[in-house]
């Protein structure tokens, strides 16, 4: 089972696992936000989560009926009924920026509002985003050098097709705020993520990496030396090479700063229950091929188990202030994996290209399952009490895909959802726009975090924030 059981979890409960371990006060101060009588109206959002689902949806089974203020959830969205009051369905947004290869441009534009960069000479793969993704912009504002980790990216069953396990324009959703055209690879191994985030909290279960248990002073001495070495070598290099080393150096500095704030797990926070994922191969993408003919039934069968485990960890990473920004990718834009638990034995990509009744039914079934998973996430966030309000109340969760309609691969009227009440986001509604560029949505999300800008991503696709979000 997972930790996010049926009972509402209180902050205090979270900390009971601490036992007699000393409490690191400065770290706890971050957690002890002032209690608010009501949800976050008038304040800025505190946590951001993006969730990517591949392959778009089936429009006539997705959009709610009813009125904007009293929407009736469609078959695909029905699983989200229990969190409907904190859900804002966005209709009429186009991903106008998604210029480039049909799938690649979609995932690249999703969080960046950028067209796909030019392809590299000699390759036909196309390039990456010209702009950072909003999660990284938000992380720089509210998380980097404040929380233990600037942001967390996780992916389930990732890099399935042509990318064969490697980072590629076809599977990259997050882009560095600090370096141009730099995609961020997600974490893939659920057990490693557990060890990294929570390993030191449950010494009985997790092996303690030497790096985390080493005395702080020793670690600082080592990092000081290493930082000096990177700085020294980089001065002897040309500008392009220097930029590479300096990017690396910046990351090490951030890690060093994290040490003095208290390393992950040196303070007290109860970890989620470690879930057995034996049989799931996080690197199975390395075995994939362009056509998706490689099937790993064992790994595919465990997608729901691993997905829930990753969501458990993501929720606790936010609740425990390990980070304030996360991204979860369900596969990549190729999604060349099967869904054995839904009795769908061909890969998702094939169903997307199949506009027969069977293909459409399969895509609808998959979309409905993703809604169930999203409900699992949002409900879990809504069970964590942050002192008079829930984790979901102080967060903004952006859910979307790289396509709108599976068979046509269109990118107008995108299936986008916002959830949470962070920054005064108002849920329980259907917001209807008229072929508005989704860059405007990205501006609105940034505004919820107190970022005052009026344009984001490629300016030719942005006319300013959406109205009626908060």
């Amino acid at each position, binding site marked *: 089972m997972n930790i996010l059981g049926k009972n509402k979890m209180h902050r205090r409960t979270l900390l009971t696992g601490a036992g007699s371990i000393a409490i690191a006060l400065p770290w706890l101060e971050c957690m002890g936000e002032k209690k608010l009588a009501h949800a976050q109206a008038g304040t800025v959002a505190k946590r951001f989560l993006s969730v990517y689902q591949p392959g778009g949806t089936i429009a006539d089974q997705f959009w709610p009926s009813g009125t904007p203020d009293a929407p009736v959830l469609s078959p695909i969205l029905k699983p989200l009924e229990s969190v409907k009051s904190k859900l804002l369905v966005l209709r009429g947004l186009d991903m106008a920026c998604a210029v480039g*290869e*049909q799938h690649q441009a979609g995932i690249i534009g999703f969080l960046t509002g950028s067209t796909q960069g030019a392809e*590299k*000479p*000699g*390759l*036909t793969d196309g390039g990456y985003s010209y702009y950072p993704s909003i999660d990284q912009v938000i992380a720089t504002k509210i998380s980097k050098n404040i929380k233990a*980790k*600037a942001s967390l*990216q996780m992916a389930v069953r990732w890099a399935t097709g042509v*990318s*064969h396990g*490697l*980072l*590629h324009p076809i599977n990259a959703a997050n882009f*560095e705020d600090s370096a141009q055209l*730099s*995609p961020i690879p*997600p974490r*893939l191994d659920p057990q*490693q993520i557990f060890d990294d985030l929570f390993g030191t909290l449950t010494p009985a279960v997790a092996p303690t*990496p*030497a*790096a*985390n248990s*080493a*005395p702080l*002073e020793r670690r600082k*001495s*080592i*990092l000081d*030396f*290493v930082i000096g*070495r*990177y700085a020294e*070598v980089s001065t*002897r*290099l040309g500008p*392009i090479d220097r930029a*590479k*080393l300096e*990017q*690396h150096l910046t*990351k*090490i500095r*951030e*890690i060093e700063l994290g040490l003095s704030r208290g390393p992950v797990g040196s303070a007290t926070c109860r970890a989620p229950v470690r879930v057995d994922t034996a049989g799931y191969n996080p690197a199975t993408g*390395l*075995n994939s*091929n*362009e*056509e*998706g*003919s*490689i*099937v790993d039934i064992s790994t595919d069968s465990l997608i729901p188990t691993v997905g829930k485990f990753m969501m458990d960890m993501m929720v606790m990473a936010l609740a425990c202030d390990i980070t304030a920004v996360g991204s979860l990718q369900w596969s990549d834009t190729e999604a060349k994996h099967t869904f054995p638990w839904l009795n769908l034995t061909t890969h998702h990509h*094939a169903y997307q*290209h199949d506009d027969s009744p069977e293909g459409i039914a399969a895509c609808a079934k998959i979309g409905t399952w993703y809604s169930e998973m999203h409900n699992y996430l949002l409900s879990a966030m809504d069970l964590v009490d942050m002192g008079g309000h829930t984790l979901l109340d102080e967060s903004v969760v952006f859910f979307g895909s790289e396509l709108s309609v599976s068979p*046509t*691969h269109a990118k107008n009227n995108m299936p986008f959802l916002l959830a949470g009440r962070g920054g005064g986001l108002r849920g329980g509604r259907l917001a209807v726009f008229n072929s508005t560029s989704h860059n405007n949505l990205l501006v609105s999300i940034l505004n919820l975090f107190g970022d005052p800008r009026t344009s984001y991503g490629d300016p030719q696709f942005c006319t300013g924030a959406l109205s009626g979000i908060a």
Partner: protein
Amino acid sequence: MPGGPINAQACSVPVAPSAPLRRLTRFEYNNTLRDLASITDNPANAFPSEESGNGFGNDAAAQSVPDILAEKYISTAANIASTLTQPANVGNLAACASAPAVSDELTCVRSVIDGFVARAYRRTVQPAEADGLAQLFQKVRVKETFTSSLAAVLEAVLQGPDFLYKPEFGEPVPGRTDVLRPTGDEMAVRLSYLFFGSMPDPVLKQAAASGELQTPAGVQTQARRLLADPRARQVTAFFFDNLLPIAALSALERDKTLFPAWNAKIGSLLRQETQTFLDREIFEGPGTWPGMFTAKYTYMNDELAAYYGVAGVSGSSFQQVALDGLKRGGLLTQGGMVSGPIHSNQTNPVTRGALIVKKLLCQSIPLPTGGVLAQVKVPEPTSAPTARERFSAHSSQAACAPCHSNLDPAGFALENFDAVGQWRDQENGVTIDASGNLPLVGAFSGPVELGQRMAESPEAAQCFSRRWMEFGYGRVAGERDACALKSTGEKFKAGGYNIKELLVELTQTDTFNYLPAVRE
């Protein structure tokens, strides 16, 4: 056209070659730790994915450092340092390190710096650098044990730029102001990572120290020696696993009713067939690239021979088997090569064609976008009895034809092989027409003739040398590699397209022997 010819008209004027800073790939990190410290559990497998970049995951232009990688470098270095300083292992760093008297500690650390650290840096450690490391030891030693302090030094080394990267600063070349040449140590690193995917061995270090690597001739001597080492075979296998669709044949999913003979074991045997064929051709046989397309033999064991319906093969080890040269003969007719690109129980001439045209002929055929994309529709599986008819109907549309006329013919030639690589004369009762004309290589009828056209194609040979250059130099070949591509291609041709000679030629280019005087 990005994949097209690169302008080589200016080769009479020397061009300062590009020499971007390279970081160890996961493959190289694992191999290096194996050779440096006998760490054999492939610690880099826990690092995040590399960017695909040039298709081999070692593209210097695509090596940014995400948070998780920076963290993994630190935690992995800590774990390795901790392992290396365990009581059972610490003596391997230096005999003195097991239990030194306090007064001997610093001397002992100095000897680890001169030994282990110099090997990790793949060069001599400068006195000031050694002092810095010794100071780190002393700083940590104030509160920690000797072992923990020594481990701190190793930890710092293993996450530092001198280990994780391959920085090159070069030395002057008499009479040239536009270029530098790599120092002996730097050239040893270039050579050993090209042929071993790992750090230099002692003989190479010796050659570096003696000045032998200052001339292309000296570099060539070492290249030939390294190429004769079994580790070079691992690197060529890595290259082909990334170039050809054979890496994961064992996981190919097929309908058991339609293909009762197919199973995961057959898939892995097919991969082994192609790997064995390439390996033995290159390292024990004639080893030319055109020869791969026309060889009238392959390698099988008893189980695979039974799958192919070949009699007279016994035993589980792979052995050379003669082919008739009618139905099969050459790389393109091997079961793994024709089933790897197929994603269902039905063959697909487009995906097979793409393997040949894009990967083996280096032609850039962009994926459809925009208005063309809107018209793309994969043919219904039952729309016609043969794949040729199904795909021709769709590919002859005006929007599709310009690209598909360059892709599909190569796939049509392989239609006699079904989705699991077995020979068939008919599809759904209709005799298969395996003829075609691929603009770049000419007309053919059937898979063996396609192989002959590929063998005769200068473009196929040039593409192969380009793929090796991209892998070997860790880049996408660009304008500044034009002359290296041209000269390597010419020498490849002059040497009868021998692959081992091509690999040696990779070490004889300006790109390999110099770096630009003005650093980028």
